[in-house]
């Protein structure tokens, strides 16, 4: 394709024409743009730079605003950029900074152009190049252009210098070694009398210090000076941010800055500065009482303000201070609570976070009540956030906050009934978890589950299915606590259950089976105890079979003594010896059931009811349902043999057959009575790898076999036969206790678990629940008891004190491993590590150089100290850099030496700092950088020392 003709060049559309065209077009915007793009593609090939640049300008207009790709024009950008005319150059630069990234292939070509422009006498050319570098700096560019940027850091033109300072941040990020060259000059710029340069430099340090504050501690005197002298609010804000990072590292520094900060807070009219002062005080200086009081006063002003921005920031400040000084939040509790219904979602979330921060066991009941009321009134999204916060707060650390589980179970029930509730999964998990962990809560749990199951309206809400699923499981598992099992069966089999998804329906059916077994068993025992006087005998059989099971279990173990300690299922029982266990308590329960009547008629009715409801399910397409329905019907079939006739029981046959059927029923009941216990999340890790098992073996072929097995959603309700596996696991668990858990086995087990989740017990310890509000976590440390005490005194909404007359029920906890450790504090990314490492190096190095210049009072100049010996070996002498040595070689050379230096410094410093000081008084050099450089070594050693003159 040939370039555009002369006519086309003459009548080229300008950017303005294009914009007008887009606004006036009649052919549709996208059509117009694609037409314009065609034009641009043609024009941009022109040999005339003017035409080309206009085409490029149009392209750089279309690209960001109409999302047109412009990466294809990369080379044209470079051509325009190298134009001698400023207008074209500028267009080129703008296009480059817009469209280039690390993967642009022609990026290498611009290095020289940038170098040329950075060195240009025209300040605007240099400015353009700096702007561009700030946007597209890559490792290579940063490395190659460091000398130029370094030169510009000392430029006499303010506009260039401040841009260079801004760019240096990017250069450091990409190429940490640049610090060795440029850091000194950057620091010098902090002393600049020009406020613009100072502001740019402070901005850079603020950004650097936020990543790794410790390295900048030695510069504290500089920052302090700025804090006291500067009149520019924006500079002050940045300096305050720096101090917020530095103050926690050095208490003497904190003491020193607290007064000036308070001064600013009192004096300033600018809300931004005031807020920054508040934030600095509450986050870093909260141990200074007067400052904190002042800050709290100001926070209240913000909270009372009409402006939603200020209100939000006030709440935000409160949430910063909450972990350390809860009283501040409590003082402002009315505002916080009221903000829950604010129309601004930011404010709502912030206040919710705050409310959750003050939750403790003494006020959890009231707060939950208040929050639930707000949840009812809120939009669905916020409602669920509230519910999530309550759930995660209450379940934290194995329900440590919940004193009264009956209350909590009812609360869960109430949450389930909130129409917008979408927390089905969390509630499901907690219901089951509480069932397994808290024995005392089971009667209330089953009452609550019954009320949920019985309500046909709930079956219409898909968000509740998970909860209903849990309720059904609870009913089956803890049916012995139920007052009316028949009612449960009716609820489980009501017609509307056909709305449930198949897997949950299967859970319902399984529960029916359990309840049925329980009823028949109770009936038979009831009868046998009435008819035959061999109750004791029966009891004996039961306990015998039980103990047989146990000894069998135990025989797998090498040392049964360990058993008690490690097997959760057995150790569970130990604390409860005074509580009624199933077997002991059964007789007393039967009394109550007798009243309800496990009569022959009722049982027969029950059988009929179940048969009627379950029979149609034999046609189900879902295997889970089909199988369980089969099970139920099969059992009924068996029992029917015992009740062949409704009205005339033939005693003799009965007595004979009964023993058979009752044996069966008894053993089923025994199986169902066996308690499911929580399993430690770490249990898997402790399973020893069996001998002869090759874990590294490639099991890929298995994929074809196992690939189609999906972990079922109802895996929480592992059928009984799964328990055996778990038990053997549990016994393995002790065996493996001593041996190192193997990594591979863990991963394999996890994989296995994923595939065959059905066969595993839920190991979901409560701490696995995602915390809806990460901010809160850790805010209520246990050691904050004083705060709790205070809080109790002035609990939110003190309607009635919770009744603690009954002791808190025991919550089953597993070993320590269950408690998830707090996440280790985030480490700065390696890039920043690298950067801070270099900065420390540089500061140490300067320190070495300038031990000399402690007392020198002469003016700061960019000259390097004349007389110091170290200077001679300093390969990073800025002037040498300028003298055009090739960078890369030179630097790597220097780096090696640098690494040696710190050691020397350490050696010298540790013992002889006193001497060094004396010596230094004779030397000349730059004073300020040196004095501050005194710090870093000691900092990194143990007791951080800040230069004395600051303190």
């Amino acid at each position, binding site marked *: 394709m040939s370039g555009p003709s*002369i006519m086309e*060049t*003459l009548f080229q559309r300008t*950017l303005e024409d294009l*914009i*007008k065209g887009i*606004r006036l077009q009649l052919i549709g915007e996208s059509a117009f743009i694609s037409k314009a793009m065609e034009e641009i593609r043609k024009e941009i090939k022109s040999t*005339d730079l*003017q035409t080309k640049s206009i085409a490029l*300008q149009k392209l*750089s*207009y279309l690209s*960001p*605003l109409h*999302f047109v790709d412009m990466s294809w024009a990369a080379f044209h950008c470079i051509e325009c950029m190298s134009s001698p005319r*400023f*207008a074209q150059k*500028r*267009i080129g630069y*703008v296009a480059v900074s817009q469209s280039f*990234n*690390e993967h642009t292939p022609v990026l290498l070509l611009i290095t020289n152009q940038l170098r040329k422009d950075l060195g240009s006498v025209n300040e*605007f050319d240099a400015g353009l190049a*700096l*702007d561009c570098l*700030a*946007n597209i700096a890559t490792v290579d560019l940063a490395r190659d252009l460091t000398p130029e940027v370094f030169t510009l850091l000392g430029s006499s033109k303010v*506009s260039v210098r*401040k*841009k260079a300072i*801004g*760019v240096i*941040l*990017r250069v450091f990020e990409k190429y940490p070694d640049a610090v060795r060259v440029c850091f000194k000059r950057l620091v010098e710029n902090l002393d600049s009398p020009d*406020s*613009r340069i100072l*502001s*740019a430099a402070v*901005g*850079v340090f603020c*950004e650097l210090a*936020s990543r790794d504050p410790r390295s900048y501690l030695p510069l504290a005197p500089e920052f302090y000076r700025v804090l006291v002298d500067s009149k520019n*609010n*924006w500079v002050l*804000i940045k300096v305050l*941010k720096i101090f917020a990072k530095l103050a926690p590292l050095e208490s003497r520094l904190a003491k020193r800055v607290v007064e000036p900060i308070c001064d600013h807070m009192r004096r300033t009219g*600018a*809300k*931004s500065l005031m*807020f*920054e002062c508040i934030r600095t005080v509450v986050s870093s200086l909260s141990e200074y009482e007067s400052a904190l009081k002042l800050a709290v006063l100001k926070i209240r002003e913000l909270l009372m303000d009409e402006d*939603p*921005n200020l209100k*939000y*920031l006030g709440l935000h400040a409160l949430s910063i201070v909450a972990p350390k000084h809860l009283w501040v939040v409590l003082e402002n509790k009315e505002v916080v609570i009221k903000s829950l219904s604010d*129309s*601004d979602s*930011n*404010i709502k*979330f912030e206040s919710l976070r705050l409310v959750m921060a003050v939750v403790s066991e003494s006020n959890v009941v009231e707060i939950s009540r208040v929050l639930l009321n707000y949840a009812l009134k809120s939009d669905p999204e916020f409602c669920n956030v509230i519910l999530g916060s309550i759930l995660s707060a209450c379940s934290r650390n194995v329900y440590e906050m919940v004193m009264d589980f009956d209350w909590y179970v009812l609360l869960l029930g109430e949450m389930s009934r909130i129409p917008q509730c979408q927390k089905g999964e969390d509630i499901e998990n907690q219901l089951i978890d509480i069932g397994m962990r808290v024995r005392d809560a089971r009667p209330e749990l089953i009452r609550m589950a019954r009320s949920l199951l019985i309500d046909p309206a709930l079956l219409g809400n898909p968000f509740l299915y998970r909860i209903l699923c849990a309720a059904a499981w609870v009913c089956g598992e803890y049916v012995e606590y139920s007052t009316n099992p028949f009612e449960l069966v009716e609820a489980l089999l009501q017609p509307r259950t056909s709305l449930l998804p198949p897997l949950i329906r299967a859970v319902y059916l399984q529960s029916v089976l359990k309840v049925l077994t329980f009823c028949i068993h109770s009936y038979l025992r009831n009868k046998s105890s009435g008819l035959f006087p061999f109750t004791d005998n029966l009891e004996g059989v039961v306990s015998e079979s039980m103990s047989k099971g146990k000894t069998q279990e135990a025989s797998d173990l090498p040392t049964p003594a360990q058993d008690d300690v490690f097997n959760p299922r057995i150790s569970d029982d130990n604390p409860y010896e005074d509580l009624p266990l199933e077997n002991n308590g059964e007789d007393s329960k039967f009394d109550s059931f007798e009243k309800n009547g496990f009569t022959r008629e009722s049982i027969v009715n029950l059988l009929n009811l179940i048969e009627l409801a379950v029979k149609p399910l034999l046609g189900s397409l879902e295997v889970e349902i089909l199988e369980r329905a089969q099970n139920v019907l099969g059992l009924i079939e068996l029992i029917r043999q015992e009740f062949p006739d409704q009205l005339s029981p033939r005693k003799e046959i009965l007595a004979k057959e009964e023993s058979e059927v009752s044996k069966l029923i008894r053993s089923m009941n025994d199986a169902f009575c066996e308690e499911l216990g929580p399993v430690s999340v770490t249990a898997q890790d402790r399973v020893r790898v069996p001998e002869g098992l090759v874990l590294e073996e490639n099991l890929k072929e298995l994929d074809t076999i196992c690939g189609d097995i999906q972990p079922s959603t109802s895996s929480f309700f592992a059928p009984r036969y799964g328990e055996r596996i778990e038990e053997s696991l549990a016994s393995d668990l002790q065996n493996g206790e001593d041996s190192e858990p193997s990594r591979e086995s863990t991963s394999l087990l996890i994989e296995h678990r994923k595939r065959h989740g059905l066969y595993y017990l839920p190991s979901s310890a409560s701490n696995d629940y995602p915390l809806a509000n990460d901010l809160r976590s850790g805010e209520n440390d246990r050691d904050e008891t004083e705060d709790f005490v205070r809080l109790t005194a002035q609990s939110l909404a003190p309607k009635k004190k919770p009744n603690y007359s009954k002791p808190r029920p025991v919550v089953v906890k597993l070993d320590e491993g269950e408690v998830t450790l707090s996440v280790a504090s985030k480490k700065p990314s390696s890039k920043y590590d690298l950067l801070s490492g270099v900065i420390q190096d540089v500061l140490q190095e300067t320190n070495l150089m300038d031990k000399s210049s402690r007392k020198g009072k002469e003016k700061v100049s960019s000259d390097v100290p004349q007389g110091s010996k170290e200077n001679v070996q300093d390969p990073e002498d800025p002037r040498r850099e300028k003298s055009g040595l090739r960078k890369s070689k030179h630097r790597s050379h220097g780096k090696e030496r640098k690494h040696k230096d710190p050691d020397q410094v350490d050696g010298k410093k540790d013992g002889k700092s006193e001497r060094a000081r004396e010596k230094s008084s004779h030397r000349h050099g730059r004073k300020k950088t040196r004095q501050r450089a005194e710090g870093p070594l000691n900092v990194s050693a143990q007791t951080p020392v800040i230069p004395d003159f600051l303190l």
Partner: protein
Amino acid sequence: MIHFVVLISRQGKVRLTKWYSPYSQKERTKVIRELSGLVLNRGPKLSNFVEWRGLKVVYKRYASLYFCMCIDPEDNELEILEIIHHYVEILDRYFGSVCELDLIYNFHKAYYVLDELLIAGELQESSKKTIARLIAAQDSLVEAAKEEANSISNIIAQATK
């Protein structure tokens, strides 16, 4: 630091974007779509801050234009509001009571002004006067070049080349 600056009209049209953190073209499109949904739907009496992807977006509406800046969570929101206002004032001074149309037709100029105000996501110049002076100086450079390019002799030279 400021991660990006976006100007969106009330109709959701983008008027200016400037990215200080690396975002690919695809991400940019997505971010803008997400943000305009987030910001434009907020009522008039709400706060000017939106939490977004772990960052904060500070926005302010001037007439039909929303000025949005995305910052780190620990940055000072009120300061950014002031910077936005500062930018608007500079534009106002430069264009003489600025309106959306000015920014539409002089998209690149608004861009140049922004480049004088911020660099690498940091404020570089807090003086309105200085920025005005720098922009004016660059404009005059451009004008001079333009005149030269548009002179008859130049066109003839082009045509006969």
